[in-house]
């Protein structure tokens, strides 16, 4: 068997294992989905009047705020779902099972590739669920072309890949599931200080650069632009640059840890 076909075959075996876990124990993923959905409902229905007034220029129409917040919530969903990957990777690494895999004649990285692909697929499923909630409360894309929909799909997939690699690295660096879950907290906290809920320019001046240039804001602004026709500007290439950069960083970090001799 060639190196590539070995990699594909073993990685898909590992992927099947991950999907089996996800299917057998959906509660972990569903729990992680609670946060973005609660945030969505909280900001729209509880804080909605003030938020809508702030966004809509004094006009308390919720539909404008729903349109504003849903792309942010979708990106937050990605950050939230990949925490599950950090947890399952750290759980795997703490088990004797990984030692078994390492002493088998399989493609060495297949375990990680299986985790990464499984995580991206799970994120996409999560986005469908959360997106459906968004649509149910009134979110509609305005005049997005097929090309823009495809670009939006590509963007969320790429961003999901980037955050997954970071989460896998965090999982490897954590001795147990609790530590992994703590370490991955920034992935769900960062959206709170992005333009997900309020525009970055309404934040204090000293804080604006942090909000504007952290990974979530460009990704959220680009998704807004694609689905709602707002200005994308430099956010497009920044979102791609962040995604590629985080993917490479997360990949190298994960592999360096995985290839170290276990004790």
């Amino acid at each position, binding site marked *: 068997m060639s190196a590539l076909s070995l990699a594909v075959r073993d990685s898909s075996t590992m992927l099947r294992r991950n999907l089996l876990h996800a299917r057998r124990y959906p509660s972990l993923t569903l729990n992680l989905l609670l946060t973005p959905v609660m945030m969505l409902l909280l900001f729209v229905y509880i804080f909605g009047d003030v938020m809508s007034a702030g966004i809509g220029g004094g006009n308390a129409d919720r539909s404008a705020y729903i349109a504003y917040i849903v792309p942010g919530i979708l990106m937050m969903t990605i950050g939230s779902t990949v925490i599950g990957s950090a947890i399952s990777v750290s759980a795997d690494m703490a*088990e*004797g099972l990984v030692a078994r895999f390492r*002493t*088998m*004649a399989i493609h060495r990285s297949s375990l990680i590739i299986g985790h990464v692909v499984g995580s991206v697929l799970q994120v996409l499923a999560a986005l469908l669920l959360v997106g459906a909630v968004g649509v149910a409360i009134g979110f509609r894309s305005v005049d997005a072309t097929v090309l823009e929909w495809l670009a939006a799909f590509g963007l969320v997939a790429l961003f999901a890949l980037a955050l997954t690699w970071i989460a896998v690295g965090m999982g490897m660096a954590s001795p147990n599931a609790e530590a992994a879950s703590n370490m991955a907290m920034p992935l769900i906290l960062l959206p709170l200080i992005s333009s997900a809920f309020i525009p970055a320019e309404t934040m204090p001046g000293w804080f604006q650069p942090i909000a504007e240039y952290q990974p979530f804001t460009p990704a959220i602004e680009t998704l807004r632009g694609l689905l709602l026709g707002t200005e994308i500007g430099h956010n497009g290439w920044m979102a791609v640059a962040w995604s590629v950069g985080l993917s490479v960083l997360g990949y190298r970090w994960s592999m360096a840890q995985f290839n170290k001799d276990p004790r």
Partner: protein
Amino acid sequence: MPPRVMSTFKSRSAPASPRPSSDAIFATGLRKSYGDKTVLDGIGLSIPAGSVFALLGPNGAGKTTAVKILSTLITADGGQAQVAGHDIAAEPQKVRAAIGVTGQFSAVDGLITGEENMLLMAGLHHLSKREGRRIAAELLQRFDLVEAAKKPASTYSGGMKRRLDIATTLIGNPSIIFLDEPTTGLDPRSRHNMWGIIRELVSGGVTVFLTTQYLDEADELADRIAVLSNGKIAAEGSAEELKRLVPGGHVRLRFTDPAAYRSAAAALREVARNDEALTLHIPSDGSQRELRSLLDQLASTGIEADELTVHTPDLDDVFFALTGDVAHPAQTEENVR
């Protein structure tokens, strides 16, 4: 008492061509340290194919480290080894294709069922779906796991987990199996079951490398035993050879009457006394002839011991002698001599 180290492997420690054809596992000068702590201090092994080899040692002696190195899980700091004819450093994938490893900690996926664990391993061994199902069913049957096959492995008892662990190891049909403390933590019944499983493996022609801290286990299963102490192999040989390393057996006489004890001690030659316990140790190989002459001596002086026990050296004696455990009661008793 420093034991004489048997040097069966020493003569082969620097062969011109390090590729002994008949050895399933061959190693020389393996070293590993973590920081300042030297875990393996140059060990050599030569294990013929189809035999059972036991690496015996107390906790922390380096047994698991040796298994990890030979099974390519970690790399050695020095020395070299061939497993199944392949160098562990140069051709780890070829080594991996020939071995099966059951580590000290359960290597089953607790979240999925026993059957799914088997099929996962079948997939990783690149068996066809049909072949995988067939072998999985066969092994589940053989290891008495059919009833539990559809239950998550996390619900299994310790013994069942070990059985599943070994069953998944066998899917790849390995020619060499590493078992790191296969019976630690098992109840006596599961332990005996495991022994049966290991014997069965050997009868199928598999080479078994097992580590254990139980002497009876090594005695029971292994063709050859190496005693690992402080990162070095303190002795190596068959159970019989190792037993010959320590001073021979003895007959122990116990008295309740101090007067009888004293007169017996005076009457018998070559006797080790324990004045507090009122026991006497008389060196003896336990043969009928020696016992009769001892009994004759006692009878002729009219002394009657309250209890007579024959003690033949077992691996415990060897183990404690070699690993220098002074807390062992038999050892302190001997020192009274």
